C-alpha cells in the first residue's frame, strides 16, 4: 500500500535536481497550456515535452505507464461519453441498435474530441506524477509548496499550515496503515468476519475497526500537538528552515523552457495550419 503513495524513483537526473518551486511553476504553466492548446501541432509540442521529460528523468516508461493505470477507467469512461453523446457534422458510423428507437451515431468530430480529451488527461497525469512524485520526494514537494506559494500569505492563504498538514499526513500514513492491520488482526482474533455476508453486514463489520482507528488517530493527534508545542512550535511565524531552497542556473533555464512552451502553444494555435479543435 505504501508504494502507491509518493513513489519516489531514486536517480540522479537533471529533472530530479530541479528546484521543487521550478517544477511547481512548470506544472501550473503546463496545465494552462493543455487547456489553451487548440491546434493539433500545439498538442504535439506538449506530448514532445512530456516524452523528453521522461527520457531526461531516466524514469522507465513502463513505470510511468503503470502509474497511469488507475486513471484508465476515467479515460475510457470520458472517451465513451464523448463518442456517443456529443454531436458533430460528419457522420462516421450509424448503427440502428434498436430499430425506430435508438440509433447510435458516431461523428468524426466526436471521435477527435474524445481522443484529444483522453490525450489531455494522460499527458497531464504523466507529467504530474513524473514531476511531483517520481522525481521529487514528498518533503521537497512540501518545502516547494511552502516557499513557492509564500507570496500567497499576503492574501491570507495559510500556506505554512497547509504544508505542515501535508508533512504530518505523509508522516502518519504508514503509521495508520500499520495500526489498521493491527486492529483488524485483533478483531479477527475475536472472531470478526470481514469477508462474508451482504453489504450491510460487511459495513457493520467495519465498525470494530473504524472506531478504534479514529480513537487512536485522535489520541495521536493530541500527543503530537503536545510534543510539537514542547518543541517550541507556534506556527510559521519566526520559523526558519534548515534547508533553504536556492534556484540555480538549471532552474532558470528550465523556467525559460517553460515560458517558451506556453509561447509555442499560443503561437501554434494562431499560426499553425493543423487541425483546430
Amino acid at each position, binding site marked *: 500500500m505504501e508504494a502507491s503513495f509518493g513513489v519516489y524513483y531514486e536517480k540522479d537526473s537533471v529533472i530530479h535536481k530541479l528546484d521543487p518551486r521550478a517544477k511547481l511553476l512548470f506544472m501550473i504553466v503546463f496545465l494552462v497550456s493543455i487547456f489553451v492548446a487548440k491546434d493539433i501541432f500545439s498538442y504535439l509540442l506538449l506530448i514532445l515535452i512530456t516524452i523528453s521529460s521522461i527520457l531526461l528523468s531516466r524514469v522507465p516508461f513502463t513505470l510511468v505507464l503503470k502509474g497511469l493505470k488507475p486513471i484508465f477507467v476515467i479515460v475510457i469512461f470520458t472517451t465513451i461519453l464523448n463518442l456517443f453523446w456529443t454531436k458533430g457534422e460528419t457522420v462516421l458510423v450509424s448503427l440502428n441498435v434498436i430499430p425506430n428507437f435508438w440509433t447510435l451515431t458516431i461523428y468524426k468530430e466526436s471521435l477527435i474530441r474524445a481522443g484529444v480529451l483522453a490525450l489531455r488527461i494522460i499527458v497531464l497525469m504523466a507529467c504530474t506524477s513524473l514531476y511531483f512524485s517520481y522525481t521529487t*520526494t*514528498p*518533503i521537497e514537494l512540501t518545502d516547494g509548496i511552502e516557499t513557492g506559494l509564500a507570496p500567497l500569505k499576503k492574501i491570507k492563504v495559510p500556506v505554512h499550515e497547509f504544508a505542515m498538514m501535508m*508533512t*504530518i499526513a*505523509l*508522516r502518519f500514513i*504508514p*503509521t495508520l496503515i*500499520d495500526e489498521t492491520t493491527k486492529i483488524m488482526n485483533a478483531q479477527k482474533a475475536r472472531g470478526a468476519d470481514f469477508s462474508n455476508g451482504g453489504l450491510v453486514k460487511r459495513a457493520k463489520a467495519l465498525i470494530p475497526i473504524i472506531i478504534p482507528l479514529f480513537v487512536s488517530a485522535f*489520541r*495521536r493527534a493530541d*500527543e*503530537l500537538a*503536545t*510534543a*510539537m*508545542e*514542547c*518543541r*517550541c*512550535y*507556534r506556527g510559521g511565524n*519566526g*520559523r*526558519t*528552515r*534548515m*534547508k*533553504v531552497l536556492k534556484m540555480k542556473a538549471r532552474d532558470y533555464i528550465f523556467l525559460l523552457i517553460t515560458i517558451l512552451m506556453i509561447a509555442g502553444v499560443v503561437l501554434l494555435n494562431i499560426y499553425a495550419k493543423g487541425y483546430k479543435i
Partner: protein
Amino acid sequence: MSNPLIKLENVTFKYPDSEIKENNFAVNNVSLEINKGEFVAILGHNGSGKSTTAKLINMILTAESGKIFVDGKDITDENMTEDDIFEVRKKIGMVFQNPDNQIVATVVEEDVAFGPENLGLDPKEIRKRVDEALELVNMKEYARHAPHKLSGGQKQRIAIAGTIAMKPQCIIFDESTAMLDPMGRKDVMNTIKRLNKVEGIAIVLITHYMNEAVQADKVIVMKNGSVYLEGTPNQVFSQPQKLWNAGLEVPQSIELIDKLNKELGFDIPLKVYALDECTEIIKNKLMKE
C-alpha cells in the same frame, strides 16, 4: 549551589471533570527541586501525578495554586507572555512515551531540525546542531532514513536528538522507555546518562523501572498526587515496604537482602548494591558460619 533550575512550591492541579477519569488525579501540594546538571528519577504508580507534574513544568498545563520557578523565573505568574512560555520550553525539553507520536517529519534529520527551526535559528547553525545531536545519540548514519522504519529505541533516540538540538538545560523523559524492548531501553538509558555526564544536561526521568531509577542522583517517589519519598537511591530503596505500598517494587537484590535479614536475622544494610558487592556480603555472611 546556585538557584535550582526547577523549583515547585506547594503546587496543586486538578483536571476539569470533563476529562477522562484516568487523568482525574490531581497533583496535590507538591514541592520539589531539580538542580542544574542533576539526574532525578521520578517513580510512581500509574496516575500518581508524575506526568502531570512534568506537564506543569513545561507549561502544557497551568497550576491551580502554588508556584513553579524555572531558572529563577516564576512561570505561574499571570503576566507570562507567549514569548516567556517560549523561553521556558527552550530551556526544558521533553521526550514522551510513544515514539511514534512525537516525530513530525518524514526524514530523520528534518525531524531533528524541527525544534531549532522553530527557534528561528540560522540555517547553518541548525545544520550544525542537527549533526551534533544525531552524533550524540549515535544515529548519524540514519540521518536520511524514514523514521517509521526504525525500531522503537531508535525512534526514541531521534526524539531525544530533536530535543538536544534545541540545547535545553534540562530534558524531562515522560516514561520514554516504557514501550521499548530491553535493548532499546538500554540504548536510551545509555544515551540519557551520556547527556547527563558529558553534556551536563539535567535529567528528569519518569519511569516504572527500578533499575533505571537506581542510576539517578536523586529519586522522588510519588503516590496519589503527592511526593511520598525523596532521597538518594540508597535512601529510597532501603525502604522496600514503603515502595511496595506505593505500588512499586525494589530491585531483586534488595528484596533478597531484605528477606534474608528478616528470615535469618542478618543485619545487612539495605541499599543499592552492585552485583559484586551484594554477593560478597552474602558470601561473607555464609562463610562466617
